[in-house]
């Protein structure tokens, strides 16, 4: 485990020494503050649209950080040839995969903490209430959704040499699932065979990332999601993460790294 944490530590150091996170955070902060500064009909108590915009920016930024950071991990190591002095040490390829995943996931988690802390300050300054439990649930679910996404990107980075390809394909898949994942069955029922069958299979087989989007609960001041459902969703995320990482390991373990 120490080796995995050591590998993760390098990934985290890389993230906070690159500019990506800071640029995205500043952009999110600026846009949120700008949105909050607009006066609508001289009512200074309006807050939900600010929450909506801020959370949307947080989601976009976190996805960008997660996907872009992860997509370049293994290809960059191969291209920079830093993979060789690493694998010449007593570390297995599976540990490298696990370390890269853990580093990206923890780094994204830290980024999420900063984003949500900023969100709490902005909204609390207007609402004067802090529903920490709701915020925790939203952040927790988003973090575990990102675990699935990061594992998926790790898998993609094994097979696609260019980080840009991995990033683009991952974005399309993730946005697609978030947008229409829960409605795929309805879409399938409107299609002729065999498309109906294919879409139905995809609907049941794919990871339902849209479950992890609890923004509506935060924006519309809804009550908490039931904790048992949250736990089941967490386990579901862990299972999918494990599946993608296992597939990544199977692809990586026999790969000829010298070509």
């Amino acid at each position: 485990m120490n080796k995995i944490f050591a590998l993760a530590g390098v990934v985290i150091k890389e993230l906070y020494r690159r500019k990506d996170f800071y640029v995205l955070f500043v952009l999110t902060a600026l846009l949120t503050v700008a949105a909050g500064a607009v006066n609508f009909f001289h009512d200074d108590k309006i807050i939900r649209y600010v929450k909506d915009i801020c959370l949307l920016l947080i989601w976009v930024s976190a996805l960008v950080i997660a996907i872009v950071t992860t997509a370049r991990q293994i290809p960059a190591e191969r291209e920079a040839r830093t993979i060789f002095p690493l694998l010449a040490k007593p570390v297995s390829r599976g540990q490298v995969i696990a370390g890269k995943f853990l580093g990206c996931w923890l780094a994204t988690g830290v980024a999420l903490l900063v984003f949500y802390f900023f969100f709490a300050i902005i909204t609390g300054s207007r609402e004067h209430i802090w529903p920490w439990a709701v915020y925790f649930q939203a952040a927790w679910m988003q973090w575990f959704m990102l675990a699935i996404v990061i594992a998926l990107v790790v898998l993609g980075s094994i097979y696609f040499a260019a980080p840009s390809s991995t990033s683009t394909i991952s974005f399309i898949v993730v946005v697609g699932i978030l947008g229409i994942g829960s409605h795929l069955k309805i879409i399938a029922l409107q299609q002729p065979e065999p498309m109906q069958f294919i879409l139905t299979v995809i609907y049941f087989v794919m990871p339902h990332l849209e479950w992890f989007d609890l923004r509506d609960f935060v924006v519309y001041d809804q009550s908490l999601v039931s904790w048992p459902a949250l736990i089941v969703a967490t386990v579901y995320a862990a299972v999918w993460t494990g599946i993608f990482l296992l597939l990544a390991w199977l692809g990586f373990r026999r790969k000829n790294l010298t070509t």
Partner: protein
Amino acid sequence: MSVILKTEKLRVEFKSSEFRQAVKIAVQGLDLEVNAGEVFGFLGPNGAGKTTTMNVLLGFVPPTSGTASLFGIDVRQPIARQRIGYLPELTYYYKFLTADELLRFYAKIFGLTRAETDQRIPDLLKLVELEHAAKRPIKSYSKGMQQRVGLAQALINNPDLLVLDEPTSGLDPLGRMKVREIIQRLKNEGKTVFFSSHELGEVETVCDRVAIVHQGELKTVGSVADVSAGSANLEQAFLKIVGAQSQPLP
């Protein structure tokens, strides 16, 4: 004498990019043994299979058939690399890390304790003359400094076997002298050094035994004196073995 490094009938094939050639045989039937405490030179012209053999020993490339082991452990097991240090020909390390952070990272990979790490790193940085630059990111280092970092990371775990790929390539005379000194020091400590090089003059100076490979096959192995017997020096012997003779100038 115990055998530290061993290959038996090692064969490595790659899919060929050339038309009408299904596979390219990089190494065929390589039987090699390196004993503990010796400095072993692994020689051959470009494309002979030296790098491929090293890649197999370090676990980068799986063998097609045959076996390779380090300290009696199959090279496919990560633990086989617990007691080795590796210096690649081209030194590429994480540019955003400092030398100190890089060495600490590798020390954790080797499972060194915090106390051991805190003790070894200053000694290594002093050995490679990088104490003044230890806290600067590696991207700010010159090429020579990066190679010295490479040497430091190869020695972080006090390895019993040091694998060097063209260790003096690109180094100035002072740098080469430093590398020779380190190799000699390790030999005096009873360590084993396995390295490939094109600098036959240096090989002659430091090596106990050498092996020459050509077109994926082992052509000869033995002490420098035995291999050079019948030729003016190791270089002439090398050229004779690989089937190339130096042509007199017009």
